[in-house]
């Protein structure tokens, strides 16, 4: 049970991010919540890579037969998901700048109501 603490941390991160998105009004805080969810998912992926007493999956001069290596695929998935997160973050901040230009506020309840 104790050894599932990393997964508990993952769930906690995701829930904190979700709560920030749902209960906060400031658009910047909503963006921060999304990045929190994303970091939680990344943490989950990189947690899956670990094997007890393992090293990084790189062959060096000190590698022997009994060297345990951690799983390489989750590293690659995490790398991809981090880059995707950077792209999404850049686009969201760009749009937040434009929203502030047009509305003069960042309150999520004051903007975006379709009148007609």
């Amino acid at each position: 049970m104790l050894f599932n603490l990393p997964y508990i941390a993952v769930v906690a991160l995701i829930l904190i991010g979700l709560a920030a998105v749902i209960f906060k009004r400031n658009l910047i805080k909503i963006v921060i919540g999304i990045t929190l969810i994303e970091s939680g998912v990344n943490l989950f992926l990189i947690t899956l890579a670990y094997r007890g007493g393992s090293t990084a999956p790189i062959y060096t001069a000190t590698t022997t037969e009994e060297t345990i290596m951690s799983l390489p695929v989750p590293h690659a998935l995490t790398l991809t998901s981090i880059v995707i997160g950077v792209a999404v973050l850049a686009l969201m901040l760009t749009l937040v700048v434009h929203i502030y230009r047009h509305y003069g506020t960042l309150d999520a309840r004051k903007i975006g109501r379709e009148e007609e």
Partner: protein
Amino acid sequence: MSIRNIVALAFFGVVALFLIFGALMTHPFGEFDEDNTPEMDQYIIDNTQSETGADNGVTAVVFDYRGFDTLGEATVLFTAVAGVIILFRRLKK
């Protein structure tokens, strides 16, 4: 405390409950017993030098085994740059 927040908290609690149960049911951290042995990753670790020639297993996965994902990833960055430029463009010709 509006009615919206109460409903939100209720369903939020349901989701949290199930996710935490799932977290407790996942296989223990860093332990791989017989019934879930990582065949795919073990295969990559064993054959990365002979098949791709790279000492770095992660780079072998990123650029050879799952190279198409990396193409998509580079495309995502390209898309983000194009989007930022098009959103900050000059509107007059």
